[in-house]
């Protein structure tokens, strides 16, 4: 008979060592990954970029594209406003007054009700409008000058009126080139400049005035390799269907 009449089967408590080892291993892995997160993140995004770009392409809709464009334009407007303020401050420092008296006027008639590229506005002598005043569609976008003033109305002739010519500066990057722009009607203008000027779509033309108003935007450049001149086609800035204009006194 076995000396052990009573065999006590001792339930051995499970050792905690494996669990502690697992916890330590997990913490070690986390520590290693976190200490090397920068290179790991770089590798991860190199691999994930094509997938995310595919997702962006699939999710792109006209609405999202337009929202993105609006956001971009808002940023440009904010940048422009900041530069404008800086410009005004610099001119004040140089003792050149940059402020101006502005009269807001509504457009009563516009082409085609009026002869090509003229507006009739509801401000005249009574409001202090003067012949020769510059007219803007808002901000610094100049579109024409006041050519006739009546008692309570006035006629504005746009820079794009057929037969008109104006001296302006073509801004290509940081360089400015004096040019003569000619109106072609319908808000369009053209100019001939020496080949190699480097004008591109989106470049602007300004009037060499104290206000340095934006007058036209390059829409198309016609280059012929055998010619020593190139033709640039512009359009007036802004929307000619606007309801109001500003008269700069």
């Amino acid at each position, binding site marked *: 008979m076995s000396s052990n009449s009573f065999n006590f089967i001792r339930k051995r408590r499970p050792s905690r060592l494996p669990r502690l080892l697992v916890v330590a291993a*997990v913490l070690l*892995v*986390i520590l290693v*990954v*976190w200490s090397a*997160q920068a290179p*790991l*993140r770089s590798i*991860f*995004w190199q691999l*994930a970029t094509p*997938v*995310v770009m595919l*997702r962006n392409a699939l999710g792109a809709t006209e609405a999202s594209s337009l929202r993105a464009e609006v956001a971009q334009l808002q940023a440009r407007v904010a940048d422009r406003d900041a530069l404008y303020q800086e410009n005004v401050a610099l001119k004040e420092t140089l003792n050149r007054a940059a402020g101006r008296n502005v009269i807001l006027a509504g457009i009563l008639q516009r082409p085609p009700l009026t002869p090509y590229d003229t507006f009739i506005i509801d401000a005249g002598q009574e409001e202090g409008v003067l012949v020769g005043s510059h007219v803007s569609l808002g901000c610094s976008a100049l579109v024409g000058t006041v050519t006739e003033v009546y008692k309570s109305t006035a006629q504005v002739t746009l820079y794009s009126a057929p037969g008109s010519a104006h001296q302006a500066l073509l801004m290509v990057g940081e360089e400015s080139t004096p040019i003569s722009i000619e109106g072609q009607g319908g808000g369009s203008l053209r100019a001939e400049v020496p080949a190699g000027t480097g004008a591109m779509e989106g470049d602007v033309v300004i009037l060499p005035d104290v206000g340095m108003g934006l007058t036209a935007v390059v829409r198309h450049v016609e280059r012929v390799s055998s010619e020593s001149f190139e033709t640039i086609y512009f359009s007036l800035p802004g929307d000619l269907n606007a309801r109001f204009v500003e008269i700069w006194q």
Partner: protein
Amino acid sequence: MAISHASRWIYAVSFALVGTGFLLPLWPVVLAGIALAALSGRWISGLAMALLVDVAWGAPMGLAQYLFFPFTITALLLSAGRLWGSSYFYDRSTLDTL
């Protein structure tokens, strides 16, 4: 060791949730995927996915930046919760019959 049918589904669904949440991007969906893996006992896959997401997105901004790796911490807590719960709630009664 063969993976059970249920495990396959849990791995697939949790991975799909984390991937979808990452691509949208919508962090609650990512959290749901990690929680599904951690709470169902597949804590290694949950932890791995959480680490991956934390490496990709980095630490959050504001006060939450002191969490450093929030998804990993969440996975660890959920896994610990699963472990604790298994002591008191899960598999407490056997299906054996006398």
